[in-house]
């Protein structure tokens, strides 16, 4: 990968107000350009806010919608990762991320794992994504994940298997108070999770989490960049909006993958064989069942 400067836009989106959020995005994209960043990353649902419930259809955008085209047009010489509600064919609504580059929507990732437990109810409002794909960004191979996706280790693993050198995680992760010696509790949990992700996949990990409140829910912030050795390369605090630009050095990725050739040594055939066997047992399939069961 080429060395790239990534701006972390730790924003507090305005709930249900796409126009207001669009304006914030355009300002941040302009700032990223001024500060010579190659990419600016926004949080999950950065164009809409999180606690949408029945507002989901009101704020949904098709990939070709004017708002997204306007944003993409601002991304001629700087890329952006933005969070939005995608209205897909069949009026399915997805919690989605778009990678905007060279004036176009280069890639869309639909959140695969929709948390529907505890304080979360996403499975009620959104359709799950069905793809985890890496893609070619101008600086190299990248992959996008939304919040809960990163809690499934197979997500980053699949992206890395497809060549991702940078894994970008956009999030609307709530905090759960602050404890002695831990500070705001959610941040430490994410740090541990993402550090392991970076080390296991020997990849750069960019995490951007939102801040602000919706109905008393406090979004935890704590956006960060971890290098492919799992070391913190940049971080923002909790509670307040923030901005930082981190340099993702291609040379560091090369060193990490040379020192720890984990990806080289991955045995895809073995994983596939064992996974097939687990599937056959789990779903009670005959031994000769073809692989395209849905």
């Amino acid at each position: 990968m080429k060395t790239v400067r990534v701006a972390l836009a730790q924003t507090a989106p305005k709930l249900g107000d796409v126009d207001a959020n669009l304006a914030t995005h355009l300002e941040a994209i302009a700032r990223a350009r001024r500060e010579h960043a190659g990419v600016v990353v926004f949080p999950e649902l950065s164009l809409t806010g999180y606690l949408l419930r029945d507002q989901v259809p009101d704020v949904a955008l098709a990939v070709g919608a004017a708002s997204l085209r306007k944003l993409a047009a601002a991304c001629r010489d700087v890329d952006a990762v933005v969070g939005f509600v995608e209205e897909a064919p069949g009026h399915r609504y997805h919690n989605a991320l778009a990678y905007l580059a060279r004036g176009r929507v280069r890639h869309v990732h639909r959140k695969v794992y929709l948390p529907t437990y505890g304080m979360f109810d996403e499975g009620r409002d959104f359709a799950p994504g069905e793809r985890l794909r890496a893609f070619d960004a101008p600086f190299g191979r990248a992959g996008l994940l939304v919040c809960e996706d990163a809690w499934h280790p197979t997500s980053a693993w699949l992206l890395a298997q497809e060549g991702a050198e940078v894994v970008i995680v956009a999030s609307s992760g709530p905090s759960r108070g602050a404890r002695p010696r831990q500070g705001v509790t959610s941040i430490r949990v994410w740090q541990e999770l993402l550090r392991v992700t970076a080390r296991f996949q020997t990849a750069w990990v960019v995490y951007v989490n939102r801040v602000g409140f919706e109905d008393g829910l406090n979004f935890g912030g704590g956006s960060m960049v971890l290098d492919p050795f799992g070391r913190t390369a940049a971080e923002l605090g909790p509670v307040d909006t923030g901005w930082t630009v981190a340099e993702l050095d291609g040379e560091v990725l090369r060193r990490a993958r040379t020192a720890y050739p984990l990806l080289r040594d991955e045995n895809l055939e073995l994983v596939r064989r064992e996974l097939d066997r687990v599937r056959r047992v789990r779903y009670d399939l005959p031994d000769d069942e073809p692989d395209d069961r849905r």
Partner: protein
Amino acid sequence: MSRPASEPPGGVDLAIDAAWTARILTAFLRDEISRTGLGRAVVGLSGGLDSAVTAYLLARALGPGAVRAILMPHRASSPGSLRDARRVVAALGIASEEVDISGMVDGFERVTGEVDRLRLGNVMARCRMIVLYDRSARDRALVVGTSNKTELLLGYGTLYGDMASAVNPIGDLYKTQVRQLARHLGVPAAILRKRPSADLWPDQTDEDELGFHYEEVDRVLTLLVDRRVSLRTAVRRGFDRRLVRRVDGLVVRSQFKRRLPVVAKVSTRSIGWDFRYPRDWRS
């Protein structure tokens, strides 16, 4: 099984990071109050710990100039309460107003007949609510609530009385944790030291009336509510069986106080069921 000496009773550590908690709660107040289009708050100041902490948080969040404390003594209230409430007003430099509710309560009894002590306590709490909401309308200010998580879970509060508010910064902190926050915020020692009381009649204290200590009940609530352990496990952790049963019963029986009134569903889209918007809808 032996337990290390440092382990807290029942394995429940109620310690919070008070500095970060204060930062989260001040940001919460600023955010939730400003999004309503109002920049001001009114809070009923009783002279007790919870309303003092709320006033300190408000002064930090909005600046003392945007906070008005309403002191609402009744002639049965302890004189010490008014003194402590005034102390908070002076320490924070916030605006204040004293409204003696004795006349309102007397008027109620004159019109409807005398009521017993418990009902009178509820009437007093609701008279205070009327004053707060009136001042809220007059000053274009939001009523900020002061109920803590312990009382909300036990139902130890008057519905549409002290439980009425627009936003509440301390409703997810147990009494023990409010105390930790109070120390961090610099709440006067006299308020920190005194025994919690609803102050509805002379020498009333929460702990006498409830029959347990906050430290203990907060641990039981943490086990039952936050960690969702069974009653049996809570007892195995060293808590009195009767206490655990009683706490569980109080939480269940007071659920109605924590919800909006139940609406019968007779249409396709009903409030509380499938009319699903956040409180912060379009704000």
